[in-house]
């Protein structure tokens, strides 16, 4: 593979770990154990992760509370880099850690890619704890259940509702990261996610509508949802008699929630440089400075935003989180990196290497991804559409980098500049290289969506958030029958 990356020959030596830590309330027993295990191996770089987590899930199906469970988990992994290749070993217990490090080093030796030097990192010592007003993971089960019972009852008592689903989950995770470069970080994170689904039935016709929500562990996210639960149930029932859109190309307006999913699927994944760094052709397509959209288009990924599900202070390679412009004024300005991809592309690491848990190595992921607000109002966007579709909320989205699909939970025809009849849920599709150019209006009403999660490389669901103002896209393919 050719490219502008110049690698230097790296001589293999014994890693030495030097720690100069003032005691900041670390778990010193664990620290000594981990630091000791890192010492004395023949590798270019080694890191150790350890984590402990607790989770609660509550699942309703119709009037039955189907599952209420508690889980506790702990384990860790070692990742070793030798001459350009990685060895990775996950484990359940810390005992015999030194042997596990040796195994990871041995595995890395099996491969023989061209050696490279990781993007440099300052040795960092830190502890990070969430600041929550009302920590969901500390709330009594009875309180959680009271809220969910209430929403379930509201949905079930709504006309034509056959059944419901509620999936609630909260978790706290404490991770320890240490590397042969002298970094030692302890981070605690909490997360909450829930989805309420109403299922309506009439004869053999079945339709559903859902509400997704989430937070960084703040319990307030599941409070005060009576009205939303009611609307969700009403919408499911209304879909029973709604028509299917006629498939074809339309001008579409996306609400902030769906536009956020669009930003994530249509462009976010293509910005993950692990798709790009080894692929010369893709690198040429994704060359910085290339125009992807109009001057009004700005797409950002920012893990340093406060208190969102995709927020963190350090990624799972111990790199500090920072804001990255992916597209600025319509032009490709940056992309998301791990230390490896940044090094190999000669760019700057962005702190986007994340792992879902200790069973997986960190890979390049998004955090909080959004389209920055513009100046158009919703009414202005609507006004000059002769026939189009207004799409809201989401079922899901997926991408193959070039092609993407995302689906709306709620859709309405637009006729002569006005919202018209409710439609069955629609799937939209497009090609990233043309669709971003076709965004011709960006609203002024940015909202961040905290529901859902992201899956990649078998790691799912990773807490992320995405957002956008209302946006309008010309010539968007809408599937239908």
């Amino acid at each position, binding site marked *: 593979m050719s490219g502008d990356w110049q690698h230097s020959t790296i001589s293999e030596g014994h890693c030495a770990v030097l720690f100069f830590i003032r005691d900041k309330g670390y778990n010193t027993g664990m620290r000594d154990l981990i630091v000791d295990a890192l010492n004395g191996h023949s590798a270019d770089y080694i890191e150790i992760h350890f984590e402990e987590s607790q989770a609660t899930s509550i699942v309703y199906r119709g009037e039955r*509370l189907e599952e209420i469970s508690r889980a506790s988990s702990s384990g860790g992994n070692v990742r070793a880099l030798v001459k350009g290749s990685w060895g990775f*070993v996950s484990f359940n217990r810390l005992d015999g850690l030194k042997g596990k490090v040796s195994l990871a080093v041995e595995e890395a030796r099996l491969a023989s890619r061209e050696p490279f030097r990781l993007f440099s990192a300052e040795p960092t010592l830190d502890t990070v704890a969430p600041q929550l007003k009302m920590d969901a993971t500390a709330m009594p089960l009875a309180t959680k259940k009271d809220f969910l019972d209430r929403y379930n009852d509201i949905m079930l008592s709504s006309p034509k509702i*056959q059944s419901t689903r509620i999936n609630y989950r909260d978790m706290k995770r404490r991770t320890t990261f240490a590397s042969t470069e002298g970094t030692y970080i302890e981070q605690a994170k909490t997360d909450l996610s829930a989805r309420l689904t109403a299922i309506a039935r009439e004869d053999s016709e079945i339709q559903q509508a859902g509400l997704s929500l989430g937070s960084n562990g703040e319990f307030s996210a599941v409070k005060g949802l009576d009205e939303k639960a009611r609307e969700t149930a009403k919408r499911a029932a209304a879909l029973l008699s709604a028509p299917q859109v006629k498939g074809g190309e339309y001008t579409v307006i996306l609400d902030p929630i769906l536009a956020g999913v669009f930003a994530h699927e249509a462009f976010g994944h293509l910005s993950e440089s692990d798709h790009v760094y*080894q692929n010369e052709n893709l690198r040429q397509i994704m060359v910085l400075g290339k125009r992807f959209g109009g001057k009004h288009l700005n797409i950002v990924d920012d893990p340093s935003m406060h208190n969102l599900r995709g927020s963190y202070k350090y990624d799972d390679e111990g790199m500090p989180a920072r804001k990255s412009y992916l597209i600025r004024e319509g032009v490709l300005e940056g992309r998301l990196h791990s230390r490896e991809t940044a090094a190999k592309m000669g760019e700057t690491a962005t702190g986007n290497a994340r792992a879902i848990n200790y069973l997986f190595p960190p890979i390049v992921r998004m955090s909080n991804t959004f389209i920055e607000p513009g100046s158009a109002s919703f009414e202005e966007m609507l006004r000059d559409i002769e026939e189009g579709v207004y799409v809201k909320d989401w079922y*899901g989205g*997926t991408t193959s980098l070039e092609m993407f699909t995302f*689906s709306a939970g709620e859709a309405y025809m637009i006729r002569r500049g006005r919202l018209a009849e409710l439609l069955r849920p629609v799937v939209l599709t497009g090609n990233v290289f043309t669709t971003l150019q076709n965004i011709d209006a960006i609203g002024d009403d940015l909202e961040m969506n905290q529901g859902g999660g992201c899956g990649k490389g078998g790691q799912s669901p990773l807490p992320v958030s995405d957002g956008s103002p209302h946006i309008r896209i010309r010539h968007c393919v809408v599937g239908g029958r």
Partner: protein
Amino acid sequence: MQNDKAKLEEVLRSARKVAEQAEVFSASARATTVQFEANELKQVESRESSSTALRIFREGKIGFAIASGGGDREALVDMAVETSQFGSPANFRFPSSQDYSKVRIFDPKVEKIAMERMVEIGKQLIAKVRGHTPDILCDVQITKGTVAVSLTNSQGGEGGYDKSFFSLSLAGILVRDTDILWVEDSESSCRSDLVGIPELTDRVVWQLEMAKKKATVPTKLLPIIFTPHGVASALLSPLVLAFNGKAVLEGASPLKDKLGEQVFDKKLSLWDDATVAYGVGSYPFDDEGVPSQRLPLVANGVVMSFLYDLQTAALAGKKSTGNGRRAGGGFPSPAISALVLEKGEVSFQAMVKDMKEGLIVAAVIGAEQGNILGGDFGGNVLLGYKVEDGEIVGRVKDTMIAGNVYQVLKELPGIGQEARWVGGTLQTPPLYCSGVSVTTKGN
């Protein structure tokens, strides 16, 4: 495994002190994966995971807790007791001791495969595919592993088994200007010698060959041949949902009142089969200790049965079908073991020959995003080919398909005579369907 069993018994003993009934389930897995990225060996991984789950009936209600990895097993009983205060009513009994018939799922040779040999296989796969298309970039994963499962309950039920698995997967990406072509395929089995290396590369090379030229389709209703991979990608999710005993019980399955009725084409028969020798979905008993079986779901188009675990079966007045499964060792729920769609009598070539204008669909993205509970399927065709006058003329792009499985599978022009495994949990021939809605750009 002896050590493990003692721990299980210990948890069971302390649970019995506070509960009317109790069940302990444990699973541990080890796997090694050799991973190539962009044609080069990037990473070798070893993973170990384990979990112990406790389910109790306390004061007539179900409590549940799980500890994974080195998670706190001592706290399991306390956590289960805490959740039982709010749990659903205990309405069944854990199965007592029984004989499980032997299902072949362990091959001692798998563990002994050297990492060097796995690296060799990866290089071989990549060389073969690049022999056809030199500038393709392949991501390849070769995985070997074993799983050990054991279960014990207060009613005297107990069992344990070891399972091995070996799998290959290859995904190739070819970028020309802004055109991206993805090809992919995989093979897996509990027995390493049943994993076909040349078969895998032959299929990938066929995909590349067919995708060389581009073709366009009009926006209209067209016949579609779904390849085995296409069946898994587009049609499977709505069916899996509809046969789930839970969806049937709550009235959310379109098949709710259709037991014994002709819903699908007469040529269509579908089984859930947990007894296939060396199938990666196979097991001697499910995750609740109920013996596995070969369960007819559809026979000649008639709906025959649904999938049940113990709790759902009790609520529905049925018997568990041995489909109580635990994702990640967690709370049991009805799920397929492996679906087997019976093959038909038409060759793939004959189906293609029969088409005046149509599509062959191998993969779609976004198929799970519609109203799959209602049977809808659809999405963007990630890999598909246009057929004109009985000939494959090239790959299609910017194309969406949409339909409903209950309409499309009601009358099938043909079912293929060559079935194969996709992802280890579905064995299917190609399906020849008619009247699927196709939407393209610029219509």
